[in-house]
């Protein structure tokens, strides 16, 4: 169990780290997608099946497309996707900041005792036997999610709806607006 978690974590972190340090944007994007997969695996590990698949569907299936298109659309003409190196000073300071934040967070986590939370919270994981195992996700079946979404969070749902619509309009308007020079011609 924990071994699997560590494996997943290492995979996710490694791909993310390499993704953010590569100079080839396409490789970065693809590696980041791999790391999103890792996150989905983590969700599965934790028993959140629906979220895991949603993560894959949305991130790997859709966000990745948006990112890839963005990369392909914003390349300097005729150049490779390789981008210029970033300033070293900035990178170093960023890394220092990051490590500092991680230090603080890590210390906080390690110093907190979660023991009193854990025993009560851990739902029993049913054991599967492989083929046709009767796996019921730990707590949140899709039905549960649906019930809650439609009752407690109906307002949030509407807000999300509005948000999505606005995002759609905004993004389309932003991306599709005619550039300054493209008005002069109509082939």
């Amino acid at each position: 169990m924990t071994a699997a978690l560590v494996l997943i974590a290492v995979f996710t972190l490694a791909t993310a780290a390499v993704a953010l340090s590569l100079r080839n944007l396409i490789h970065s994007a693809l590696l980041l997608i791999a790391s999103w997969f890792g996150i989905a695996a983590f969700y599965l590990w934790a028993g959140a099946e629906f979220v895991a698949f949603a993560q894959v569907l949305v991130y790997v299936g859709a966000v990745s497309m948006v990112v890839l298109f963005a990369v392909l659309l914003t390349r300097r003409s005729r150049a490779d996707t390789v981008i210029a190196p970033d300033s070293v000073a900035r990178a170093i300071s960023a890394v220092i900041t990051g490590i500092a934040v991680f230090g603080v967070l890590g210390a906080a986590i390690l110093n907190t005792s979660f023991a009193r939370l854990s025993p009560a919270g851990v739902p029993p994981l049913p054991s599967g036997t492989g083929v046709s195992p009767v796996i019921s996700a730990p707590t949140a079946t899709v039905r549960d999610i649906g019930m809650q979404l439609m009752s407690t969070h109906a307002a949030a749902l509407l807000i999300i709806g509005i948000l999505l619509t606005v995002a759609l309009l905004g993004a389309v308007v932003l991306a599709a607006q005619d550039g300054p020079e493209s008005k002069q011609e109509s082939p």
Partner: protein
Amino acid sequence: MSVSDLSALNAQRATPGARVREVHDSFHGDLLEVSMGPHHPSTHGVFRMIVTLDGETIVKLKPVFGYLHRNHEKLGETVTYLGSMPYTDRLDYLSSMTNNWAYALAVEKLAGQAVPERAEYVRVILAELTRLLNHTCLAGFLMQDCGCSGTPLMYAFREREYILDLFESLSGSRMMCNYQRFGGCRVDPSADWLAGAQKLTDRYGTFLDEFETLLTGNEIIMARTQGVGKLSPELAISAGVTGPMLRATGVNYDLRKVDAYGVYPRFDFRVPLGDHGDVYDRYMIRVLEMRESIKILQQALAGLPAGPIMDPKAKLRSFRPKAGEAYGRIEGPKGEIGFYLLSDGSPNPYRYRIRPPSFINLTVLEDMCLGHTVADAVIILGSVDIVLGEVDR
């Protein structure tokens, strides 16, 4: 179109690239220059188009010729008049019979030779069979370009084989018939052969019905071809476009009617005309022309007179036409195929020139393709009906 319009059109022509946006524009992305051909599944041979794309839209298209330039005209000057006949088979290799005829016609004009009536009838029969063959294959290839997985092409070739069987049993070769001679035809079709031709004519309509059921009403094909590659009649005339492509723009010009060569005036047939000049019209005009060809065939087979097939005065060896020049043309399946011959009295022509219909029809290729997508360019090219042997000679 008025004169000034035409001049404007040509002036626009005179500055190539005027229509091409050279400004780099980020919204439209980079222009991508793609070479389609010479090895490309849909260029019908070794034709090449250098296409400049904006996304998938064509902003510039330059045809490149010559990948099958076999020096036909030069060779024609070094071999005898008769020796050129088998070479004409290899011009438009889908319709050797009409090439033969056009060449024979030009030589007959040059040498002032008469053709017996039976031979004229046989020529008409073979020319119309060739038209059937060519148009059927073209429809098959066009559909292949539209992305059919071979089925229409297979059906087209199935019928082609029947016609080729006829050609083979008459002339001895499936494609390279080398059948017409100056002053007649090489062999006289037997009664069996004529019966076979009659049978084929009778059932060709059924095949066309099936073919049309498969294709003509097909929504995808209509969507792909209607409104694509429009050509205006004015431009078509100015660009020397001939054949079904010209008639698809609505211009009533069929050499079988205009020149009334051979015995065509004796037959009752109509000339289908299109109104839009797009790919669909070009396809449909050919289908309708095939139906008219069947009518001509029926009449010709019924009225075939007895008599010699060759002018008895015609000479095979040491054929030397009088000095002079002649331009003879007929309505080939692809358009006006003409031969311009210049004789200096020797056994070889001094100048041997072919007017290749599909080459000249390609003049308007860029005009038809601009603003359309790559996929359209492919079917537009397909609808022009080119055969590289004739384009590059």
